[in-house]
């Protein structure tokens, strides 16, 4: 069946004069949305997934002052800062048996929150922790390369010792990495203060950082292949 061809009404011709303005506004909108909306600052910072066990870093690292490396043992020797095995939890937390008695000294043997830990201990199946800080697979980050060269945990992970639930505080974007690689001094500290998240430098951090940089002979690379291997 032949249909009548569609014609735009005449008044639409006036709109063509507005096209440059519409185009400009659309462009501005797109740029703003892309630059701000898709920035890691917007998408990633503040990411705080719910974990299978409501483990409080605020309690363990903050109040009890457990060293970060008590659990994240491999951070100084490997690229990956290992999430501790269930066994590490069991050092302090063991379940009570049916009679309510505990074989070893145990903190909260009857806690319901610790149930996944006790189940994992009994079955040998892993606790599935949610990953908070997730770099893209094409970026190779090495923990040991940083913590043995004066970069503290706090520089990337923030004050974990004050977090009830761990969340991402830094964007972990490439530009953010490069800021530090280009100007490392303000972010460096003596190696014995690496895991001390509440450390306040006695003098200006640039001065201390420069000294550490000098001592350790640090010259961070900004070459692409440093991280994109």
């Amino acid at each position: 069946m032949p249909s009548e061809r569609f014609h735009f009404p005449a008044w639409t011709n006036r709109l063509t004069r507005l096209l440059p303005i519409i185009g400009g506004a659309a462009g501005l909108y797109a740029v703003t949305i892309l630059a701000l909306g898709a920035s890691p600052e917007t998408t990633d910072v503040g990411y705080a997934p719910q974990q299978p066990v409501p483990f409080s870093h605020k309690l363990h690292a903050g109040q009890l002052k457990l060293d970060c490396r008590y659990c994240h043992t491999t951070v100084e020797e490997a690229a990956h800062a290992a999430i501790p095995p269930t066994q590490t939890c069991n050092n302090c937390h063991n379940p009570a048996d049916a009679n309510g008695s505990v074989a070893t000294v145990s903190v909260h043997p009857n806690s319901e929150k610790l149930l996944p830990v006790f189940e994992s201990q009994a079955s040998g199946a892993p606790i599935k922790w949610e990953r908070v800080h997730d770099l893209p697979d094409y970026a190779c980050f090495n923990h040991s390369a940083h913590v043995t060269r004066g970069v503290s945990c706090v520089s990337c992970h923030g004050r974990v010792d004050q977090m009830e639930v761990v969340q991402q505080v830094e964007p972990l974007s490439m530009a953010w990495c490069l800021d530090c690689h280009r100007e490392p001094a303000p972010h460096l500290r003596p190696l014995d203060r690496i895991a001390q998240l509440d450390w306040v430098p006695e003098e200006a951090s640039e001065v201390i950082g420069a000294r550490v940089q000098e001592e350790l002979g640090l010259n961070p690379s900004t070459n692409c292949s440093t991280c994109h291997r």
Partner: protein
Amino acid sequence: MSRDTGTTYWRSLNELQGTPQFEEMLHREFPEAASELPDGISRRRWLQLMGASLVLGGVGGCRWEAEQFAPFAVRPSNRTPGVPQRFATSHEVGGSGRGLLVTCYDGRPTKVEGNPDHPLSEGGTDVFDQAAILNLYDPDRSDSVIEQSAGQRFTRDWSDFDRFASRHFAALKRGNGKGLFLLSEATSSPTYQRLLEELQKNHPEAVCLEYESFSRDHERSGAQLAFGRVLRPHYDFDRARVVACLDADPLGMHPAATRHVRDWAAHRDPDSGSFFNRVYSVESELSVTGAQADHRLPMQSSSIRLITAILEALISQQLGDFPRETSRSESGDNSDPRLASRLPLSPEEILAPGQLRFVEALADDLVQTRGGSLLMAGPAQPADVHARVHRINDWLENSGTTVRYTAEPVAGRLSHRAAIDFLSAELREGNVDTLIMLGGNPVYDAPVEVQFGDALQKAKTSIHLSAYRDETSDLCTWHLPRAHAFEVWGDTRSSEGTYSISQPLIEPLLTGRSGLQLLAAFNTGNPPASGDLGKRFIQETFYSLTPEPPERAWDTTLHDGFLAGSACEPVNVPVVSSLQSTLDAISLTPPQRSLEVVFFSGPGCLRRTLFEQRLAAGTARTAQ
């Protein structure tokens, strides 16, 4: 292609026969469907679909998957997540063990290298060792137990088989194992031998056989001829100034090739300060050794026997008076001990001038460097060639220096060829009630005249343990998936006898079991418990081998990958005097100008099918 010579050359069998496929190929520029689209789809539709796929392909990247950590409940000691670990282990290729160092990344084996401490490997591997890792993850590996009855196949699991086996083997045991036949691949595993003896004890009338399509049996029977007992020759390239290979490939297809290559290469460096070796190769294929040889003479495989005889004659002439062995013989009737007279024709009549020059130079060189020269024959060569070579090495005082002999661990078995002939005869006569095949694929690779496939179907029950569902599996009552060497416990001996443990590096991916597990289950009547990968059997064997406190020696051996000092002791056995009459009885025919078919295995790219198919080491049968 015809030239004035009148000779017609052809490049494929299809061309020679002028098949229609060849004619079509000749007149097509491209193969079918390469230049035009196949029927049933228009070009426009094709572009639409492809365009849409391309666009949608990008959409897959638009997401950020939440990841999870799954840390161990109890982290194994010495394990740092994300840091690769290396484990010393071993595997077998064609019945000889190889010392390996396997890299595991978070519990997954990813790369195979040679064990640098292993006396045979010293960090070296060959293609089959390297390929073992691909074999482990091969998606075509068999993953299920299959029962075939009344022409139908049923997928079963191990518990079904275990139920069947305990019933079946209890019945067999009551009959003293009458009608039970066991065919295995060549294996050097001491535990396997031990379990086999146990099986034999439980089932006194059972028959255990070994078959390997590419076997080194000629080497064994050659030593039997020359020394009156089965010995295994070992070549020391570290001392060999002149090496002559008669159809042999010691640098390529030899169980000790990695060791040979290192020693050979050490004496190819002009700056090393040591002597510089020279390699002669007379061969029918282009082997790795042939490609590296300083002097190479292409020769029909069937003519190597004659070349050896001529070489022997020339050497005995050069050595002047009677060679040692002949003078010791008391036969008395040797009025003319000159071996040249035993040749059917004089060397000049048999060989072309260039060939003769080559052989004369070789004989010269071997005699000049005697005590440091080395002559070897390939596994494809018949026993008498090997015997002759042993005798020449003895004359040249090479025995004990460049070539050493050790006793074969299992001396009394049937040769592989005799075993498969015997088995198929028994099958045809209906004497086989139950045939167990541990590995191997004889339906595919047994000699064609044996007709093993037909014979196999006469067995009442046939059980085939195999990594793949192959031709043999298809004709058997039971097909059982076989575990990879990296999945189960095992033990091996390398060609010079060094004992190695092979440890599981990952749990069986596809529910397979090893031959050892199967054999142990047949013996005890108890199938392995879940998670039991056969460690106990290996330990029992190991404890009988070492005088040290066993626990400690076990840990050391497991860590090092091999038991130090477990290589076989070399033996010094004189050449028997009856060898001469044996060799006299063999007619030496001059080279024929005819086609020759040679079955061989080698690391060439197109010719590996047979070998890869079985992952078996060795050699070839020669037919004319």
